[in-house]
């Protein structure tokens, strides 16, 4: 195996300037795992590994709970049997055919939203810089509503409308915010403005529409995982995997830009090129999620900040945000399904309620820290 070792944090020795022992491990303020083999070297904070593992385990627990409960309760042991292909009949149909795709989609889209939020918050260097605040979610909703009202039916048509709406909104916000490059705070303020315009237009469109279409549009707009099946999971997982490559490709430049545009450029980052790539990948991740479920608010806003605090990671953490986003969405969806059973709430209603409280806390916290 490679040379892996745990570096302990040595106690701070005041007044030891200039006597630093060359062989002593470099104190980076936390315990880390370093893996080096040939030209490959990776470093991860131990706390991050532990925290992400805990989040994954929690997500699995919630997933099994979701698979086990409902109108047709299944014992956890039977759930595991079904998952390993050793169940048949009604149990297999309920667990694998009905409930599993919903849980899998929750994990995939929650992770996608968490990462998208982290990317925009990194880009804008602001915890408010998430796709739901900047207006991409509203844009996607407007696109979907336009398609629904102009007679479009079918899942793919509406999804295409959502992706189109999200991308057009992103382009408009990006161009309006452009002045000698795109600056984070301007992106947020322009985004909030554009978002308000779009949502008022959407409201007007829905009010004009005949009742049946208006109801369809409103249901879609709440953001829900109700009624999804494997047909939705496959494209989401496929696109998610492709976008993951994009995330990996831009992540290093993105983190370097967190030091400021000038510092990033001086370190060899192509500033505007990287920024555009981050926007494109982030919008694509948001659009994939929104196209499948409608706008699910606040996961993208809250997951990166919660992850950062749990992991105690500097700046933004993409892996942590993905794990936190998946956990949040799956947990919220469990609440949405079971809280008022047999009534099924859209998961968007639950995330909005939790997220609203979080947003208030965030704004107060931000205002105090300035």
């Amino acid at each position: 195996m490679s040379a892996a070792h745990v570096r302990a944090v040595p106690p701070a020795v005041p007044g030891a300037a200039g006597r630093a022992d060359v062989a002593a491990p470099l104190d980076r303020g936390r315990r880390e795992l370093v893996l080096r083999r040939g030209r490959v070297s990776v470093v991860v904070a131990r706390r991050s590994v532990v925290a992400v593992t805990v989040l994954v385990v929690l997500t699995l627990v919630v997933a099994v709970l979701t698979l086990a409960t409902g109108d047709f309760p299944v014992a956890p042991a039977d759930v595991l049997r079904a998952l390993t292909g050793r169940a048949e009949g009604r149990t297999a149909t309920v667990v694998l055919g009905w409930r599993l795709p919903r849980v899998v989609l929750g994990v995939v889209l929650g992770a996608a939203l968490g990462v998208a939020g982290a990317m925009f918050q990194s880009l804008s260097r602001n915890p408010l810089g998430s796709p739901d605040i900047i207006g991409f979610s509203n844009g996607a909703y407007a696109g979907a509503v336009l398609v629904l009202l102009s007679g479009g039916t079918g899942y793919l048509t509406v999804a295409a409308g959502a992706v189109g709406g999200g991308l057009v909104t992103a382009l408009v916000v990006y161009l309006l915010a452009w002045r000698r490059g795109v600056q984070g705070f301007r992106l947020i303020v322009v985004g909030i403005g554009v978002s308000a315009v779009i949502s008022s237009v959407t409201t007007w469109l829905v009010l004009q529409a005949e009742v049946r279409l208006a109801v369809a549009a409103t249901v879609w707009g709440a953001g829900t995982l109700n009624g999804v099946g494997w047909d939705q999971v496959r494209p989401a997982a496929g696109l998610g995997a492709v976008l993951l490559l994009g995330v990996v490709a831009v992540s290093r430049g993105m983190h370097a830009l967190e030091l400021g545009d000038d510092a990033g450029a001086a370190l060899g980052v192509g500033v505007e090129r990287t920024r555009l790539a981050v926007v494109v990948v982030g919008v694509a991740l948001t659009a994939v999620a929104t196209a499948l479920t409608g706008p699910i608010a606040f996961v993208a806003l809250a997951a990166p900040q919660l992850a950062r605090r749990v992991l105690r990671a500097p700046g933004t953490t993409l892996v942590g945000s993905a794990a936190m986003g998946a956990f949040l969405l799956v947990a919220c969806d469990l609440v949405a399904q079971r809280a008022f059973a047999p009534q099924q709430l859209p998961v968007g209603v639950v995330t909005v309620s939790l997220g609203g409280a979080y947003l208030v806390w965030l704004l107060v916290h931000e205002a105090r820290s300035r």
Partner: protein
Amino acid sequence: MTQHPPAPLSARGLTLAYDRRTVATDLSVDVGPGSFTVVVGPNACGKSTLLRALSRLLAPAAGQVLLDGRDIARYRTKEVARRVGLLPQTSQAPDGITVADLVGRGRFPHQGLLSQWSADDERAVRAALAATGTTDLSGRLVDELSGGQRQRVWVAMVLAQQTDLLLLDEPTTFLDVAHQVDLMDLFAALHAAGRTVVAVLHDLNQAARYATHLVAMRGGEVVAQGAPGDVVTADLVRDVFGLDCVVVEDPVSGGPLVVPRGRAWPAPAPGPVPPREPVTVVGG
């Protein structure tokens, strides 16, 4: 080696502009190898803009910046970052980042997707911390440091980049006087250790004391350049800064020392300075 080694970094006939506002035209400056070049001038004279062009942060509207004789625009960005380090005027430490972590970010141009924290990276960070006297701070959060410590840490980040050219954009601006001297001494030590340093400074006396080559700018033009002892004269200061002053010998370094007059002590008619009412100065 030739008798006159070529300048590692030079500006040739630069026109510098933001959007349509032209800051400088036909600007040419050489940064001598091993020099401590300091650019001075009043606010908005284009000195920071020149530094941005030299570090490739700003593409000139006309003219070229040459790095080792080759147009800097034709290098790959990471290649430039391995040759030229820049301490920008403003930068942000991400929330919750530790000193060693921030200094490690300086390794970016040497790293890749697979090589994220090599033994070389660790050695470079360790050396940068030692050179700036911040080794003891390495595990601390950057947010918790004093202004002087924080600026040292940013310098360490640039040093971790391991470039032989070091560009500094007003590095002492927000520090108190003791930390300013401290930091300038650090730059002098880095220069003595073999690095070529280019700094933009506000303080003429600091510039005169530490520079081996002084460049005075006004209105986007180089007004004078050379050794501080030759360049810093009362006439030049009046010309460049519009300030009446007396240039005396610095009792510490032996170089020129600018003593401003201000309106309260106008240039005397030949004769002794008339006595004045005492003025109480409250230091801040």
